[in-house]
């Protein structure tokens, strides 16, 4: 290594760290977020270039240099291609895939570094093994998450669930035994240990994500994101690289905050999500007949025509039906008539944190018209008409009113307090939670049966006739 470049690299690492911190700060501000992303990207570019200079400056061209440059090129092309091609509805899959790449990198790094640390007798070996394990589990877990989000999940039978728990325990047990053996005898080297731990963790990652329910995916993505950060931070400690520690830990913190936020929004504990337990035990009130009032498109259009303030509550059903654009068209029509339109978005409306906001923004809906749950609940009674499209559990008043409901305690959009409610639904099916929606029974709630996309566009054309 070229010693004279060490101070320079240290300086650029400090600058990179500051850029990461500043970039993340700006990413939290809607006005400056785009600049924040560029700043963080700049910090990354600087860190990579200065590392390359540190390692290869003044050296004759080596295989390592060629391989690294080639890999940087290949990675950049693949990364650009994926990022430009992905549809906004598939963002959760994309993030899962990127989680997998980060985890995979941490895992491979552990295996590569193992020979270097074989003679060390300190904590760095344990750190290396831990980061390898977390990296490997994140890698395989994220790949499974990717496939689950792509709709390849099937119903997970109870027997399989128990088998999975058992297998997970056995894996943990083997991991502990192997780790202990390494410390007792010198015959089992660090290399073997790291590879064994990596293999076990790969399997563990699969078993970790496999049983998790589709509705809990936002939590899982956030958690896996946090784990890639933590693995990066640990590798940073092992290699004594501060910019890696800072980058990794910041990401870990972001992931943990989002994870707990998602858990709160779904009224689930992290433990119950991770164990794959689905809350649908209390079928006590499930078979009650509910008297619903259905309405027609023209009646709804009439209501909208006389409303001063309309709230739209989108759920993932809206995105599945690709109805964002029809929604935006309806909003335009209403606004031209002088009606105020706002969107009310529940934290878990999409498949990942903030997903619904992105999907609406894609349909060129102004982000300043998107209210979050608390803002909307504070002035719910101002809304003359609330149009619910593709959301179900997140507007179910049972969460507040029925103590026996599995939804009880979940923060909801308190739609029932609006003056009138029209809910566009395909049929009488339940939401993810599998419980009847007591909103249907309310005096001020009517159901409009039909496909979201078609209903919204016919509403729009009916409205033009008034």
């Amino acid at each position, binding site marked *: 290594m070229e010693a004279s470049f060490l101070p320079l690299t240290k300086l650029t690492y400090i600058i990179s760290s500051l850029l*990461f911190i500043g970039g993340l700060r700006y990413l939290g501000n809607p006005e400056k977020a785009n600049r924040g992303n560029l700043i963080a990207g700049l910090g990354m570019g600087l860190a*990579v270039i200065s590392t390359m200079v540190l390692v290869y400056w003044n050296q004759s061209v080596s295989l390592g240099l060629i391989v690294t440059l080639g890999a940087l090129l290949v990675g950049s092309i693949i990364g650009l291609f994926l990022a430009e091609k992905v549809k906004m509805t598939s963002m959760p899959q994309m993030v899962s895939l990127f989680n997998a790449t980060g985890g995979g990198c941490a895992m*491979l790094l552990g295996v*590569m570094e193992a020979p270097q640390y074989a003679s060390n007798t300190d904590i760095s070996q344990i750190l290396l093994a831990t980061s390898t394990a977390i990296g490997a589990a994140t890698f395989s877990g994220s790949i499974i998450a990717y496939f689950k989000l792509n709709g390849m999940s099937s119903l997970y039978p109870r027997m399989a669930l128990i088998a999975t728990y058992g297998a997970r325990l056995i894996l943990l047990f083997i991991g502990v035994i192997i780790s202990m053996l390494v410390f007792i005898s010198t015959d089992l080297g660090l290399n073997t240990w790291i590879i064994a731990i990596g293999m076990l963790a790969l399997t563990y990652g699969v078993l970790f994500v496999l049983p998790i329910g589709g509705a809990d995916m936002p939590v899982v993505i956030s958690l896996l994101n946090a784990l890639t950060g933590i693995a990066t931070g640990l590798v940073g400690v092992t290699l004594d690289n501060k910019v890696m520690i800072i980058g990794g830990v910041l990401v870990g913190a*972001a992931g943990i905050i989002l994870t707990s936020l998602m858990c709160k929004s779904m009224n689930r504990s992290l433990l119950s999500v991770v164990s794959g337990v689905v809350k649908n035990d209390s079928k006590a009130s499930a078979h009650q007949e509910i008297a619903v009032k259905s309405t027609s498109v023209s009646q709804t259009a009439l209501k909208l025509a006389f409303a001063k303030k309309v709230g739209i509550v989108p759920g993932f059903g809206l995105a599945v039906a690709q109805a964002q654009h029809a929604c935006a068209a309806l909003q335009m029509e209403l606004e031209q008539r002088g009606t105020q339109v706002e969107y009310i978005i529940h934290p878990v409306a999409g498949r*990942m944190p903030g997903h619904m906001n992105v999907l609406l923004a894609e349909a060129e809906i*102004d982000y300043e018209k998107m209210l979050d749950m608390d803002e909307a609940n504070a002035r719910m009674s101002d809304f003359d008409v609330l149009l619910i499209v593709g959301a179900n559990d997140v507007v179910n008043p049972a969460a507040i009113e029925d103590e026996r409901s599995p939804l009880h305690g979940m923060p909801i959009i308190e739609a029932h307090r609006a003056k009138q409610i029209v809910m566009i639904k395909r049929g009488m099916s339940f939401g993810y939670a599998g419980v009847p929606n007591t909103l249907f029974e309310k005096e001020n709630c009517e159901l409009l049966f039909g496909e979201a996309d078609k209903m919204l566009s016919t509403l729009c054309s009916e409205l033009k006739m008034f």
Partner: protein
Amino acid sequence: MESFSIGEWFTEYEEAVYFLFLIVFLGLALISNVPSILHTPLMSGSNAISGVILLGAIVSIAELPEGDYFGISLGFIAVVLGTINIVGGFTVTDRILKMFKKIK
């Protein structure tokens, strides 16, 4: 393997432990008040930052002994994965944030 004493370990890593604590609190403070509309770009953007692990892979390749072709192929894959994470993450975040911006 020799046993290591907790005392020695602590002296060596004392600084790192303080450092970790400070960064954790910095991270929690930086991110705790992000409005929900920015949660997706925050996640994809921070995801890209975790690609900083690429630095480790670059250094690791350079330190491999000559002729370690197994190591170098692992390194190649590691650098490719890290670069995908970084380039893809920042690009997709930029795409998302541009959609938020062009309105008005």
